[in-house]
């Protein structure tokens, strides 16, 4: 391509006159801006030499005129460029209001305040939502025709049955790890047989149900949020309301019920798998035959360990279902909002599950259970 003429130069014939030439387009914007910033004072501008001309070029030309403080009739323009230049001028005469952004200490304090307020609101919303769901459940309970059995069973399959391989495998692996850890300490005392109690108590009281709850917080709470969130952004929830249905009854109760029924079952499975993991390590590495493992288990294990463990399962189920559904209902229309809410629901459920588990542990210990 041949070297294009300079976009702006002084007219050798007429002093005080500028000549514009070449393409004044977005592609040339960088070169144009460099040339314009060097333009000295002038009283007239002849822009008839301009070839390609687009809206960006028009804006740059307008800026040049403003900086040179040219009178309206001091600009000569080709007729075909006139409409575009007039349009752009009309726009550029009303410049935007600058929005000041504050990045200082005040903004920091402000953001902390907003975040605290958001968190407080979240807690209130969760408590309120829990009450609302409870009321709806009480209202629906005496009317079996309004129980949504199909939906509940479908969710039971999705949150329960489909999670069996994952829960069983991961609990088994953690069981083997706990047994290994215990054996490393206990072997010094010649007391490797206590691995049975270690694995048994750990899984019956804590790990079985906790692992299940954490896994389902990641797997199910996120799914609930995404499902309901997508429905919310597609205005399906609004449609449900206008059809005279209650979204809590239609969407939340079946999910809650499914999880309350399935989480204890999965927790029981996790206990079995974890203890099986311990048994395999015992047989393979520590010289504890499976028969001996089971006999020792019968001798030392008490029912209360199992009961305190499994009693926590429905509580975790309620927490996971409530947060998952509530976050989904709070989605506001955009894809980004669905993502944010899903993240928030997983983080909240895992944090709450671990927190509640700690309270349970202290309480059970104080009660001597």
């Amino acid at each position, binding site marked *: 391509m041949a070297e294009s003429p300079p976009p702006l130069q002084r007219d050798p014939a007429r002093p005080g006159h500028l000549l514009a030439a070449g393409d004044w*387009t*977005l592609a040339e914007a960088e070169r144009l801006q460099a040339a314009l910033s060097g333009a000295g004072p002038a009283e007239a501008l002849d822009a008839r030499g301009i070839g390609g001309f*687009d*809206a960006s070029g028009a804006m740059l030309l307008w800026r040049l005129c403003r900086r040179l403080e040219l009178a309206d009739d001091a600009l000569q323009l080709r007729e075909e460029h006139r409409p575009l230049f*007039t349009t752009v001028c009309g*726009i550029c005469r009303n410049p*935007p209001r600058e929005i000041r952004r504050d990045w200082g200490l005040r903004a920091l304090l402000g953001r902390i305040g907003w975040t605290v307020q958001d968190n407080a609101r979240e807690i209130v919303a969760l408590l309120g939502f829990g009450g609302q769901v409870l009321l709806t459940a009480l209202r629906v309970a005496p009317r079996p025709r309004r129980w949504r059995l199909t939906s509940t069973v479908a969710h039971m399959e999705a949150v329960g049955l489909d999670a069996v391989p994952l829960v069983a495998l991961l609990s088994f692996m953690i069981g083997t790890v706990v047994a290994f850890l215990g054996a490393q300490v206990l072997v010094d005392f010649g007391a490797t047989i206590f691995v049975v109690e270690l694995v048994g108590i750990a899984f019956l009281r804590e790990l079985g149900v906790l692992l299940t709850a954490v896994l389902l917080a990641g797997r199910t709470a996120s799914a609930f949020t995404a499902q309901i969130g997508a429905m919310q952004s597609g205005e399906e929830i609004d449609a449900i309301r206008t059809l005279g249905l209650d979204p809590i009854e239609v969407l939340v109760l079946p999910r809650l019920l499914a999880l309350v029924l399935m989480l204890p079952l999965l927790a029981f499975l996790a206990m079995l798998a974890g203890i099986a993991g311990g048994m395999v390590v015992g047989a393979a590495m520590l010289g504890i035959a499976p028969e001996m493992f089971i006999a020792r288990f019968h001798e030392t294990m008490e029912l209360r360990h199992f009961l305190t463990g499994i009693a926590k399962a429905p509580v975790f189920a309620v927490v996971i279902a409530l947060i998952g559904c509530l976050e989904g209902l709070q989605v506001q229309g*955009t894809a980004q909002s669905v993502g944010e809410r899903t993240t928030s629901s997983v983080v909240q459920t895992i944090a709450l599950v671990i927190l509640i588990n700690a309270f349970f542990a202290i309480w059970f210990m104080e009660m001597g259970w």
Partner: protein
Amino acid sequence: MSGAEPAIAVRGLVNAFGAQVVHQGLDLDVRRGEVLGVVGGSGSGKSVLMRSILGLRRPQAGTVRVFGVDALSRDAADRRAIERQTGVLFQGGALFSSLSVLENIAVPLQEQLDLDPELVHALCWMKMRLAGLPGDAGHKLPAQLSGGMRKRAGLARALALDPPLLLLDEPTAGLDPVGAAGFDALLRSLKQALGLTVFLITHDLDTLYATCDRVAVLGEGRVLACAPLGEVEDLDHPWVQQYFHGPRGRAARREV
């Protein structure tokens, strides 16, 4: 680039989804500087045609040339050349929901060119006003805009690179009549001021009568007719007759 070359030239286009054939040897020219309206029943392949022109969909056969460049080329330089010369408004606006209106308009400028941030801001603001948005809309997120404003913001983003060719997919669908009429007027004034070539898919007869130089009717996998409105109206084809001479068609024509 010779001036005689059409802005878009489609030859022998074949598009099929499994057994369902959408286009069967479709030919279409969009001349420079014209507004071509594309109409056709639902499922006649209007959007598929646009996606083929944009290179978003690979047709089973046929060629598409945009300003003489092969739109189906896999060469990155060819692709870039076409992307720089075309602006697209998708049906829903397709604004990036996490960015404000001004940031949305700035995306193509920042990606394709290396400009001073102050200039980018000024250009984006100008494009936003050009598309008929008020000045305070710039810092709003797409979710805070009405349907009509979202379309205008989408149009502003399509105009960001000052493309000579604009492809619009049902720009007035979902707008109230006043908003749609405003959009038609905007399109006319932009076309006049910027000298745009416009490929316009629409169901809206009012838009058709208000803006288009020529109309292409899609059907039976090909272009049934491509001519000025007056000629297309008289085409002897059941769908065309129903479309233009049904109650809605008559009403739209009366206004002109």
